[in-house]
């Protein structure tokens, strides 16, 4: 029987895959993609809890919508930053992004 717990477990595994991508990837675009995975799992949590626990209001869906807005803004600014850094460094490897390191 599929209930709230199965949805929460699925979102947890999705978030863990995102954590692995953020911590281990060397390409900055891949890190952004992993962040998107983590935001998706958070949205899944919101919607599942809205469906099973707070059934009389759509507040969870509303917050998921806000998360989608913030994710769209984040990915637009993040990719613009990556393109801007690529123009200076000719690389998207995170090990080369050490402008603020001394």
């Amino acid at each position: 029987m599929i209930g709230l717990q199965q949805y929460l477990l699925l979102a947890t595994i999705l978030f863990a895959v995102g954590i692995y991508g953020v911590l281990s990837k060397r390409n900055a675009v891949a890190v952004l993609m992993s962040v998107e995975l983590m935001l998706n799992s958070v949205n899944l949590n919101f919607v599942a809890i809205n469906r099973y626990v707070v059934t009389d209001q759509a507040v969870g869906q509303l917050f998921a919508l806000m998360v989608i807005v913030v994710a769209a803004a984040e990915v637009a600014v993040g990719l613009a930053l990556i393109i801007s850094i690529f123009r200076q460094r000719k690389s998207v490897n995170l090990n080369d992004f050490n402008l603020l390191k001394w």
Partner: protein
Amino acid sequence: MNMNDAVFIILGVITLFGAVGVVSFNNIVHAAISLVISFLGVAGLYFQLQAEFLGLVQVIVYAGAISVLIIFAIMLVMDRDPARTNLTHKINRWWGGLIAVLFAVFIGLAIRESQFPVQAGSSSSERIGQLAELLLGDYVIAFEIAAILLLVAVVGAIILAKGAKDQ
């Protein structure tokens, strides 16, 4: 096992395989395609959770707009052999894997042990109307701030990507 369980299992497997593909493909274009598959799986799960509007928004915004943006950025910053564009760090992969596994195990155990106040019965069918009333009623300020945030992000992204002109 009834119909809903089978649909959940199929969509969950699609979502997880897409997510694992994002972190395991060595070619970043393949990883981006895999990300689209994962987004579509999550959209199917939204439909399964009776959040039809969010499912459509997921398909349009994530699987449509964000993935196209990511693929365009990949095309712009590709600087080497495509088969070696999505490599993992030699040391950090082990730390990352360890942290991810520990996170999944501990949160999973916590979810298994927890009791949730699950309410019986399905949600009402007037979800989109409720969402509209919340967005333009109690949460109208958050709605407007989200609109301004998107505008600022678009302008900022254009300025960042275009490069500042020397005065």
